[in-house]
């Protein structure tokens, strides 16, 4: 899903009317970011009132940051009981670990096979079967919180145990906007570590942003005192994305500061230098502050050096930093001002104890020290890499072609990789447990949770002619932790500083990947159980696979199957997965695309399969990445829509995303192609003139065509011989054509009441060697399957196709290619 903004015209700031390069040359990046974000200080080229619409000004009056950290922890505790598994797919005889946090002293766990996870009383209700297994039983519960916040960790080294003079320099773009007259109620109230070797009472040193937003240095002396010395002027925070819920938050170019802090142990002299990367000489935040401390000798410690956080005496990590850091350096002496300026100008002294170059090893968790000492470290909790650095000149947007300009890492206080909970119990999957959708059902008092996972067939084997691919990549993309609203930590969420979330890990509670969610718009996991239930009710034996193994094993995973079904919303696909389906179809495989808005976003899993990465741009989406930051850090490949990579889903499956809306679904009307002998068998048992899916649904109450819709588009690659069997109609104006197909906003296409492109097309097409595709083009389709005790035209059509596709008989290709369908719409 990638929701459309209904009011983007009203809410968006007026674009800056100067060329990007000219503007950069004139005022530097600070001016661009702060003006676009509506937080311009006096002295900028354009004021808030000049650049923002009234609605945007109203929005700018509101606090701009979200308390993600607090919300997530609060919501998980409120659930009383929750958990996650160490993998989403497991083979027979394989082990799967279950992690549980419980507010209860005791809880019960049972492994269940999930059939129907939607409790809506209009449908079949919850269907699950308890599997009698040794792990079922009572367990001792305890609370386990999630440790949010990313940073880089460099192991302790004697060279870093400074006791005397030193200098720390870095390029930074801090994003924590603290209370100001314009933004009261900010969630950022504490200090943040930039480069720290700090262990509280156990001593150390560190450069911080203090609780007032000032550059500061913290020293622990051998006399037992701690001194914090601050710059005179707060740094102006960089606002990394245009704010607002109802416009389309878009990343903006970075506003950088060069900062340096020196400590002279001989004199106690401390120098704090901060220089915004702008040509405004009168910028009040361009400042040098001098202080004197009584400390002459520092207490060293054996703690690691942290970048973007600080340690405590107990060894815990806190004081997480929000924003970018580029090329932090530590010197074991006091640098002169000339030397400091030389670093700023890329020509500094070469005797650093450490100089970390984040442009290296971008695809990994390694942070590399390019000094001779090789004090390398690693990142924790997935800060965002492949970020434009202080020296990005806009000439390249692919970090692989200008690596030295991508030396920044964007850290967030709400990043999360692995929650690292202790294992509650480990399930060894019995050798004879059938492939299917399962869950660890947890219960204590009135609290209940399900931790789902898939049991796939043993690798290289198949137990059916039918396979269903559970879209685990899409589950991760949507996977929120905590509340269902706006899915914190999912790829639909934004970080607490407003920048978009690019990575989503499975090693945390995915609290919306669950049955029994209270909604009339079941989504992803819960909606997919409508299909599983239908398959079960109809007696089909089905192997259940996931995106994980489709990406890993490719077409060979699918070869044993006569037919493969997708779930309701397989939106996030890797190149390997697309190629696997293409190969399978070319070899005679048959695919039933049982949903809508599939195969949409370029998606990259990490090599361990622990998390996925998505870089959003130019799609129907919740946020859009910043300029120059659209290439995946893991592979370098460009992100965005497959369509703009030349792989529009219409080419393979006949249809692609065209519209979305979430008020009420519609039925389909049969089209002339439905009587074509090549496909007329699909409608066996269906009244010739009846509307299809014109009855209550478990998705948005009524109709089989809704939520998100796909459409045949011959211009985008729908094969000429594809048959459009039926099309939906009668959608409301809540349904809007996707933004990627609208070139100008003025005179944009109307909504569903008038726009002929707002519809779902049911499509059939044949492949060589007996292969074929049937596409429903509606996320809501499967919500209609169970109506009237599974006796309805949606169920009948689905069954007709599945039985035909699962049979031995090849689907013959058309006698000749019909090119009459070349007209769009």
């Amino acid at each position, binding site marked *: 899903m990638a*929701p459309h903004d209904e009011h983007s015209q009203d809410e968006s700031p007026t674009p800056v009317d100067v060329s990007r390069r000219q503007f950069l040359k004139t005022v530097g990046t600070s001016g661009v970011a702060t003006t676009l974000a509506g937080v311009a200080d006096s002295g900028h080229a354009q004021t808030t009132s000049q650049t923002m619409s009234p609605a945007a000004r109203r929005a700018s009056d509101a*606090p701009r940051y979200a308390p993600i950290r607090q919300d997530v922890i609060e919501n998980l505790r409120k659930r009383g009981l929750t958990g996650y598994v160490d993998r989403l797919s497991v083979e027979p005889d394989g082990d799967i670990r279950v992690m549980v946090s419980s507010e209860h002293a005791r809880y019960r766990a049972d492994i269940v096979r999930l059939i129907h996870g939607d409790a809506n009383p209009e449908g079949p209700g919850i269907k699950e079967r308890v599997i009698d297994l040794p792990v079922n039983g009572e367990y001792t519960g305890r609370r386990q919180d999630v440790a949010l916040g990313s940073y880089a960790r460099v192991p302790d080294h004697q060279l870093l145990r400074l006791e005397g003079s030193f200098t720390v320099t870095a390029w930074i773009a801090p994003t924590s906007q603290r209370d100001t007259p314009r933004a009261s109620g900010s969630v950022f109230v504490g200090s943040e570590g930039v480069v720290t070797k700090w262990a509280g009472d156990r001593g150390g040193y560190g450069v911080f942003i203090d609780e007032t937003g000032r550059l500061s240095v913290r020293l622990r002396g051998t006399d037992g005192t701690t001194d914090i010395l601050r710059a005179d002027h707060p740094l102006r925070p960089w606002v990394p994305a245009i704010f607002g*819920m109802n416009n389309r938050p878009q990343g903006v170019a970075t506003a950088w500061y060069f900062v340096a802090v020196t400590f002279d142990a001989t004199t106690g002299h401390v120098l704090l230098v901060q220089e915004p990367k702008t040509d405004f000489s009168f910028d009040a935040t361009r400042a040098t502050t001098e202080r004197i401390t009584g400390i002459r000798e520092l207490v060293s410690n054996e703690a690691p050096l942290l970048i973007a956080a600080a340690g405590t005496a107990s060894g815990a990590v806190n004081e997480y930093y929000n924003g970018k850091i580029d090329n932090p350096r530590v010197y074991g002496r006091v640098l002169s001002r000339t030397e400091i300026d030389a670093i700023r100008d890329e020509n500094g002294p070469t005797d650093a104890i450490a100089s970390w170059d984040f442009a290296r090893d971008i695809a990994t968790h390694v942070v590399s020290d390019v000094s001779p000492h090789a004090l390398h470290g690693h990142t924790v909790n997935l800060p965002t890499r492949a970020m434009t650095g202080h020296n990005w000149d806009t000439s390249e947007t692919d970090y692989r072609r200008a690596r030295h300009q991508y030396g920044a890492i964007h850290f967030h206080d709400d990043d999360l990789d692995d929650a690292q909970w202790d294992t509650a119990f480990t399930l060894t999957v019995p050798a004879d447990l059938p492939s299917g959708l399962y869950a660890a059902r947890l219960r204590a008092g009135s609290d209940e949770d399900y931790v789902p996972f898939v049991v796939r067939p043993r690798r290289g084997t198949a137990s059916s002619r039918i396979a269903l691919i559970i879209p685990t990549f899409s589950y991760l993309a949507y996977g929120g932790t905590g509340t269902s*609203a706006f899915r914190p930590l999912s790829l*639909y969420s934004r970080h607490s500083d407003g920048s978009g979330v690019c990575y989503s890990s499975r090693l945390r509670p995915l609290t919306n990947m669950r049955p029994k*969610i209270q909604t009339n718009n079941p989504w992803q996991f819960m909606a997919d159980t409508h299909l599983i239930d239908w398959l079960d009710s109809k007696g089909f034996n089905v192997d259940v696979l996931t995106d994980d193994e489709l990406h890993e094993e490719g077409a060979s995973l699918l070869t044993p199957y006569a037919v493969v079904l997708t779930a309701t919303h397989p939106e996030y696909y890797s190149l390997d997965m697309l190629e696997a389906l293409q190969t399978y179809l070319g070899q005679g495989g048959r695919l039933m695309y049982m949903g809508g808005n599939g195969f949409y976003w370029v998606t990259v899993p990490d090599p361990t399969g622990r998390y996925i990465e998505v870089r959003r741009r130019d799609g129907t989406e*919740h946020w859009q990445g910043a300029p120059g930051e659209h290439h995946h850090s893991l592979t370098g490949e460009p992100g965005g829509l497959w369509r703009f990579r030349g792989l529009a889903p219409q080419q393979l499956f006949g249809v692609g995303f065209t519209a979305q*809306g979430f008020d009420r679904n519609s039925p389909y009307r049969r089209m002339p192609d439905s009587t074509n002998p090549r496909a007329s068998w699909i409608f066996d048992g269906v009244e010739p003139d009846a509307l299809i899916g014109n009855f209550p649904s478990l998705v948005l109450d009524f109709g089989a065509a809704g939520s998100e819709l796909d459409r045949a588009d011959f211009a985008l690659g729908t094969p000429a011989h594809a048959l459009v069997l039926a099309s939906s109609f009668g959608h409301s104006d809540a349904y809007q054509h996707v933004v990627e197909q609208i070139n100008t906003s003025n005179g944009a296409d109307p909504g569903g009441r008038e726009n002929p492109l707002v519809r779902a097309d049911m499509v059939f097409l044949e492949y060589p060697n007996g292969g074929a595709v049937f596409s429903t083009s509606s996320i809501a389709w499967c919500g209609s399957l169970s109506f009237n005790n599974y006796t309805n035209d949606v169920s009948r059509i689905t069954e007709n196709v599945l039985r035909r596709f699962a049979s031995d008989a090849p689907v013959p290709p058309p006698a000749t290619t019909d090119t009459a369908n070349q007209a769009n719409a």
Partner: protein
Amino acid sequence: MREDFLRRYATSPLHVARLERLLATYGTTHGEARFAETFIAWDRACSDVDAALVVTEVLATFEDERGELIRLSDKAIKGALRFLADAVSVSPAIRAYTLRTWCRVRDTPAIERVITRLEAAADAPTTELEQLLEHTTDNALSR
């Protein structure tokens, strides 16, 4: 607070417009930010993690026969939250389904009955909440 309200209760940007309409209706007395702050405080105090989300979804579409959004009293809103959070003898999905069904009525007498019911729920003992549910679920499910 307004922004925080939208972030907490919008399940996607598509729903923001509905929530803005809700805020505009409920913010007429003391302002949108004040209402947002009050509602979030009720949410934080509520034992059910998703009750407030469901309540905002239902209230944002609870209209009279002219299509005007109905402005419930604070007591009725708190009743809706309590109903979703505390009638625990029935599954959360049934509670949410019931509240949605109640708030689909459009004629004035029926709307008044719903409001009375919700206001009563604000102070009712849990057993009465569950009785209320049992009493109305049959009708709700008979559609």
